C-alpha cells in the first residue's frame, strides 16, 4: 500500500496520507487551500458518513478538520505513508 498514489475517496482510514495533488478547478483548489489543505500536507481520513456521504479529514499539520463531499474527495490525490496517524 505504501507509496501508492490514490484518490482520497479510496484511501484507508486511520493511516497517514500525504497530499500529492489536487486535480480540480481553480475554485476548488482555492477553497481547499484557504481551509488549510496544501500539496505535501499530511492528512488523515477519520470517518465516513453513511450512504456515500462525506468523509471527515483531519489535517495533521494544522489540526483542522473538514468534511469533504465524495466528489471533492475524488479530486484529491494522496500517497499512503507507512506510519499510523
Amino acid at each position, binding site marked *: 500500500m505504501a507509496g501508492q498514489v490514490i484518490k482520497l475517496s479510496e484511501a484507508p482510514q486511520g493511516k497517514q496520507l500525504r497530499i500529492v495533488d489536487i486535480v480540480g478547478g481553480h475554485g476548488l483548489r482555492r*477553497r481547499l487551500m484557504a481551509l*488549510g489543505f496544501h500539496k505535501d500536507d499530511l492528512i488523515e481520513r477519520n470517518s465516513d458518513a*453513511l450512504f456515500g*456521504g462525506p468523509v*471527515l479529514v483531519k489535517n495533521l499539520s*494544522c*489540526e483542522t478538520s*473538514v*468534511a469533504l463531499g465524495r466528489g471533492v474527495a475524488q479530486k484529491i490525490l494522496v500517497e499512503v505513508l507507512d506510519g499510523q496517524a
Partner: protein
Amino acid sequence: MARHEGPVIVFIGQPNSGKSTLFNAIAGPKAQTSNFPGTTVSHTHSEVYFNGQVLRIVDLPGTYSLNPADPAEKAALVHLFKETPDLIVNVVDASLLSRSLELTLELLETEQPMLLALNMVDLAEKKGIKIDPEKLEAILGIPVVMTVANRGRGVKELLSCCVEKLKTGSSPRAPSWTEEVERSVDSLANDLPENFCLVANRRFTAIKLIEAGDTFCHEILEEISQPLKKRVEETRHHLESLRHLPAYEVLAAERHHLAMKIFEAVAKVQRGRKISGEEKLDSLLMHPILGYPLLLVIFCLFFFLIFFIGSPLEQLLLRPWTWLQSWVHGLSLSPPFLTLIDGLLQGIGGGIAIVLPYFLPLLFLMAFLEDLGYLARAGFLLDSLMHRIGLHGKSVAPFVLGFGCNVPAVVSTRILESPRDRFLTSLLIPFIPCSARTTVILALIAFFLGPWWAMGFYFFQLLIVALVGRLLTLFIREPSPGLMLEIPSLKWPSPKIIISKVRYQLRSFVQFAWPILIAGSLVLSLLQLAGVDVWINRALTPLVKGILGLPESLGVTLVFGFLRKELSLLMLLQALGVDYAQLPEVLSRTQLVVFTAFISLFIPCLSTVAIIWREISRKAAVFSMLLNLVVATLVASLGRLIL
C-alpha cells in the same frame, strides 16, 4: 459614515475564530454567534466607551483569505476597505494558529495599523499547543493579546492595547517572500501608473491584481487599461514559470510556508497527550453508525424537552389569565367595550401564557446546540440526505437556524458558494417549522392530541421539505458544488453566553413580536365590532370551508397569519369565541390538524417574504409564496381525506 465620532476598529478573522463572541463580550450581545463557521454574514457596528474614549467597533463576517469565495467573504473584504479602519484587530483561533496566520500575513500586506487577538488560548492548550506571544509579537511586528472571549478573559487588555496602538498609529511592514517572487511582484507594483487607484498600497494592489483571476473580485481586472492588463498577464506567466503552479497558488504557497515557519518558531506542540472528554464525545457524535441514532435522539430530546417544560408552564400561566377574563366578563360592561378589552387581554395574555412557555425553552436549547458546535456535525451526517434533495450538507446550517426563525436562516444562505444553492435553500426554508410555528404545533397538536402526534406532525413537515426539494431539483438541474465544510472543535458552551443570547432574543420578541400579537388581536376585535370579519370570511369560504373543511369564521385568522403565525393561534380562540381549554369542543381532531398544517405551511410570514425579496430576488419571493400556498392546500386537503 461620519468619521469624527471616534476611531474605527475593525474585527476580522477566519470563520469561527470567535470575532463575534469577542465583539459581544465588548459591546454586549448584538452579533449572532454560534460554533459554526460563517454565522456572521453581515457586519455589525457598535460604539464602546472605554477609559473616556469612544471606539467604533465593526465586526466583519469571517473570511479564510482576502480572496473571497462566497458573498459573505466578499462583504468582509469590501468592508475592510470601506470602513477605512484606524485599526485592524485580527482575531485568531489559537488552536488553529498555523492556518490562521495565512490570513494574518495577508492582512499585514495592507500595512495598516493592526494587532492580533490570540483567541481560544484555553482550547489550544487543551490540544497541547503552547504559544509564546512575545516571540510572535517580535516576528510579526504587531502587538499580540491573549484572549478567551467566551469567558471574557483578556477583553480589557485587548481594549487598552487598542487605545495604546491608536495613539502611536505605527504601521507594520509587509512580510517579504522568496526573492524571485518578491522581485516579480515589486516590478509590477512599480509599473502601476501614477494616477492608479490604489487599495492600501502599491504592493498590495499589485498582489490583488495578480490574484484576481476567477475570484469574486475579477471585476477590477475589467476596469484597468489594456497595457496594464498585459503587464499583469506577464507577471502571472512569470510566476507560473517559476514554480509550475497557477500564479495565485504561488503567492498562497509563499504565505503558507511563511506561516508554517512562524508557527514552528512560536509554538510548542505536545504530542501523545490524553484524549479529552470533548474529543471522546465528538468521535461518538460523528460515528458513522452511532451518529445517526444519536442525531435522532437529540432531535427527539429537543422536541420533548420543550414540550415537557412548556406545557406545565403554559397551564400554570393560563390560570390567572382565564380568571381575569371571566372576571372582566362579569363586570357587565357595554358590549363594544367588552369586545375591545377581550381582544387586548387575548393579545397580552396569549403572548405570555401560550407563546412564551414553548418559545423560552426552545431558545435555550437552540443556543446550547449552536454553541456546542453540533450544527456542523449534523451537516456532516446529513450531507448524503441533502444530496437526495439536490443540496449538500452546508445547507443544513441555514435549515437548522430556520427552526429558530426563518429570517436569519435566509440571510445565512450567504455562506453558500453557488447562487443556485442559495435560491433552492431559501425556497425550502419557509417549509421548516420556526419557533412561532413550533409554538402553534405544540399548543394545538401536542396539548390537545398528545406529544406523539406533534412529533409525527413535525417529521411530516420535514418530509415535505425533502419532497419539495426533490421536486424543485427536477427543474433546477445544475449540479451543486461539493461539500467543503470545516468541522470546528466541540466546545462546552458557557452558561453566561447562553443566557445573554436568550435574553437578547427574548428582548426582540417583546419589542417586535408581542406588540404585533396585541395589535392583531385588537384589530380583530375592531373588525368584529364593525362586522367586517364576516365579509372576509365569506370571501374565503370556498377555501376555508370548501377545501379545508374548517368553520367559516376562521377565514380571517388565516389572513392575519401572514403577519405572524402565532397570531393565528390567538385569533383562532377569539374568532371561535371560546377559551383555550374549550377548543376540542368546537373543533374536531381532523380540523385541528388541518388548521395547524395549513397555518404552518401556507405563505411564509411577512418578514420571511421580505427577507427573501431582499436577499435573493423579487421573483424568488413571489414564487416562494405561490409554492407554499399550493403545498399547504394540497397537504391540508390530503390531511382532511386521510384523518
